[in-house]
């Protein structure tokens, strides 16, 4: 599929399609979907008893994923979230880096916008690089290119683990 998550690539991702792909063969994957569009994306992929979509607690999705990953070390946990939410809880990336759970992945659907409130620009539109923040916080981090989700389930913590195109 034509894919773009990060700046500088030619075509935008269809976020619904990306999330459907991420969740297609989920097995017993535990999913936290952050408020705003990620919760809709996850729901669009199909209601599932192991998905917890958020409608509040902005900034908390990654930390919820951490608490769940620590409680269920034998299960994989995926946090689907957006740039606005991650920016509100940047410190939780540092907390995840210290705990270093190998079963946690955080995928940020970074559209550089606050979608729910009218598509206002977020800090990432001005060049703030969330993958770099995550990488500096001891997570395995990568901007996902066209080869998008093929390796996101590798041992974490991963902020977004993928092959470059």
């Amino acid at each position, binding site marked *: 599929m034509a894919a773009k998550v990060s700046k500088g690539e030619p075509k935008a991702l269809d976020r619904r399609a990306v999330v459907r792909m991420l969740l297609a063969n989920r097995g017993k994957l535990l999913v936290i979907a952050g408020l705003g569009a990620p919760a809709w994306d996850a729901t669009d992929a199909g209601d599932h008893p192991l998905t917890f979509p958020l409608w*509040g*607690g902005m900034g*908390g999705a990654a930390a919820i994923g*951490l*608490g769940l990953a*620590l409680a269920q070390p034998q299960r994989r946990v995926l946090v689907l979230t957006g740039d606005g939410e991650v920016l509100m809880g940047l410190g939780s990336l540092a*907390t995840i880096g210290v705990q270093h759970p190998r079963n946690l992945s955080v995928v940020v659907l970074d559209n550089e916008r606050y979608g729910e409130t009218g598509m206002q620009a977020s800090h990432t539109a001005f060049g703030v690089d969330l993958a770099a923040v995550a990488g500096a916080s001891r997570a395995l981090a990568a901007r996902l290119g066209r080869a998008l989700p093929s390796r996101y389930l590798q041992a974490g913590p991963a902020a977004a683990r993928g092959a470059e195109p």
Partner: protein
Amino acid sequence: MKAHWSQGLHQLFKQQGIRQVSFVPDAGLAALIGLCEADRELRAVRITTEEEGIALAVGAWLGGDKSVLLMQSSGVGNCINMASMLSACRVPLAMIVTMRGDWAEFNPWQVPMGHAAKNVLEEMGILVTRADREEDIVPLAEGALRIAYNTLRPAALLIGQRLLGAKTFDD
């Protein structure tokens, strides 16, 4: 020699099946944090701000773990919006809050949040009790943990500054 209340709380956490303890470092909680970090059966999680601890507790509960969140009273204000999740999703959580801006405080910046902490917690639907005598800490904490996890709601124990010993400007 009398055991420090931190040892009683640490034992209580074990008895009550607590698995995760999150905290922002604090002088009044230093001994308890040390005991939790040294205990391989507890997961001690240092957080960067107290609201992270609320979110962490929600995730822990989704995964079946009981948790306790430790903080100084100044951290109560950092939790307000995140605490909405506790009532919206009926998530239990026990909080242990050491007071500043309380008895004999020297730092004027601590006073507003110290003064407001109890009301802020209660306004967010969190049950609050307060210990002002050392011998009350463990029994009141047990009450907070039990009501939290038996009735599925958040409960906080405040530990008064007179009990902890107020810092002075020279400390």
